[in-house]
């Protein structure tokens, strides 16, 4: 075997017209902690936009009901819950009509559940991209939690209709709703980062997710109110960040009529802390395993 060095003569080529570029890329094995690469994510924001846009474009193609599906899911759940828990079991709803009590919670919950499931399966679903082209992988789970916002917006219109129908006026705290929604989004993203990265190696995650979401819903005061739980244990509910989100939604929207309305303060603070913990650790775990995605997915 002969190994020649590159011949120094350059045949028939001219240097490129562009000036020498400012960016030099060094490729080498990552050692230790990988940086979160948030700047790279920002540089690729247009790709993020296009991925979300594709998701929205494609989602209800070739369906008869189309956008109606977005409304149908929470409304049907609301009707069933109202019959079962509101009428039959008489679950206390703090003086608010049970349907609107349930729907106010279903709104952020459904957004969270679909975002979590989408971002957790997103990496494996994008195998063809991951193995063929480079971009910050963080974009994929992030796009999973963004596209659900449109569904949330549409389902929110139904809530406005319900509030008018039942004559419920929101409290001024309604301006805080985006912050509560953001908490739901970051929670979904945090768990989505963990699960999507794990899913690359362990397909168990695919089976885990529907089950996890179901159990999680019963642990979250969606069909009941957290007042059902004895006061001294209530902070424990905060360990589930979605409790904070759901109760805050009720507080901001129905507070005027809710019997013992108060911002679930401690509970909310615990939720934020947990979410940040999961989000940051998720991002670190994601980045640490990212380098092997293309090899094992």
């Amino acid at each position, binding site marked *: 075997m002969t*190994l020649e060095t*590159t011949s120094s003569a*350059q045949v028939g*080529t001219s240097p490129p017209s562009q000036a020498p570029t400012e960016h030099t890329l060094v490729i*080498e094995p990552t050692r230790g902690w990988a940086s979160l690469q948030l700047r790279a994510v920002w540089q690729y924001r247009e790709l993020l936009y*296009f991925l979300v846009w594709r998701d929205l474009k494609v989602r209800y193609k070739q369906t008869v009901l189309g956008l109606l599906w977005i409304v149908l899911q929470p409304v049907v759940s609301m009707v069933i819950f109202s019959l079962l828990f509101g009428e039959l079991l008489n679950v206390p709803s703090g003086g608010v009509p049970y349907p609107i009590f349930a729907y106010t919670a279903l709104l952020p919950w459904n957004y969270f559940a679909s975002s979590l499931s989408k971002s957790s399966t997103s990496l494996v679903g994008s195998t063809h991209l991951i193995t*063929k*082209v480079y971009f910050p992988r963080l974009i994929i789970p992030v796009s999973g939690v963004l596209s659900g916002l449109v569904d949330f917006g549409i389902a929110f219109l139904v809530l406005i209709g319900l509030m008018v129908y039942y004559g419920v006026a929101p409290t001024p705290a309604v301006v805080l709703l985006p912050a509560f929604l953001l908490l739901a989004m970051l929670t979904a993203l945090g768990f989505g980062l963990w699960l999507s990265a794990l899913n690359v190696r*362990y397909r168990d995650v695919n089976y885990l997710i529907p089950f996890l979401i179901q159990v999680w819903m019963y642990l979250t005061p969606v069909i009941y109110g957290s007042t059902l739980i004895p006061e001294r244990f209530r902070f424990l509910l905060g360990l589930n960040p979605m409790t904070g989100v759901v109760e805050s939604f009720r507080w901001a929207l129905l507070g005027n009529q809710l019997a013992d309305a108060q911002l679930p303060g401690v509970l909310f603070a615990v939720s934020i802390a947990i979410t940040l913990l999961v989000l940051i650790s998720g991002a670190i775990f994601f980045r640490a395993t990212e380098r092997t995605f293309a090899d094992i997915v």
Partner: protein
Amino acid sequence: MIDIAIRVEKLSKRYRIGRAQQRHDTLRDALVAGLRAPLERLRRDGRGLDRPAEDTIWALKDVSFEVKCGEVLGIIGRNGAGKSTLLKILSRITEPTEGRAVIDGRVGSLLEVGTGFHPELTGRENIYLNGAILGMRRAEIDRRFDGIVAFAEIERFLDTPVKHYSSGMYVRLAFAVAAHLEPEIMLVDEVLAVGDIAFQKKCLGKMSNVARGGRTILFVSHNMAAIANLCTHAFLLEQGRITRMGNTQDVIEAYIRSFQSLNGATLDQREDREGSGRLRFEDMRIQDRLGRLLDVVTCGQDVTFELAYTTDTSIRSQNVVMSIGFYNILGQPLFLCRSDLQGTEYRNMPAQGTVSCHIPKLPLPPGEFRVNLQCEVNGVVADWLRDAYIVTVIEGDFFGSGRLPSRTRGDLLIEHQWRQPVADAKE
């Protein structure tokens, strides 16, 4: 310094293979192994042993080279030699295990055309989506949009979902987007192996324009004609190492020579194969009419290709299709002998055996030809060996006239008759 676009230093990539058997595909396995691992590590540390060597394979080992600005460098090598791994590392899809690469300039990589195309979206929408995936900004795509559409020749179908496109249109659109990517450095993998001949020519034309435009290109292909056409320099990768580097023509010749040593090694030792493995080709022999083994074949000779195989026994009563593909030395396809096209059905094959394909009059002129073997079981590729054999053909009396066309006049001989003139009725 500034005129070096890519500098690669001792780049290596290790994959685990032995571990593939006991990879922790389910969480349960991982938990069990997680409990065991500390113990095992203790034991191994005690003995001072590293991971056994057979667990891993070096897909790339100590690869170093430099590419100057504006140079078009070809990468040649057999399947599994590490070409794609190298491009994947340079495109940052996967990380190297050792070594480093320094790239000066904006990189666009084209490891596949149509990455991220969505069948439900229209041509117009896919142009934007695919452009963004390849790293173009929206403003750039806007600017090049008309050029892309014209190049792909799909004006009329711009607003049709691509799932209704013919495969030709699909590929044209996909390549058009990629071809309008204008980074300073382009990494291209085998994308020309798609589309019809006319479109391939157009793509090659576009690429050589790009090359002349002073762009730096790293080009991987099995198509030696394309490599010879486009590249000023090339190197040959064999089992993850660079074994030859320099002038394109020299490297292509070294590559071709490397095949001739292949026939010595029996097929069953070849690992660079693809497919499910339900059937494996073990050996290939060529026999003449009387069953004598042939080392070289004569033009027009009556030959039989004998393919010895083994299967897992579960293959019984499955539908098996065998094919032998003939290629010239540059890798351009000449003809295909495929059992189902010719009307032979293979069912209930013995677990080990030999199938044969008889060609009464081999239509190859003198020269060397590459042979691919492929087997499908129920439509799924079971074994696929590129360059399983190099057939050496020597001069023979194909036409019964003792004469043959000059070697530059094509890679096939065909039986035909010229007739004496017939007087025109009018005269």
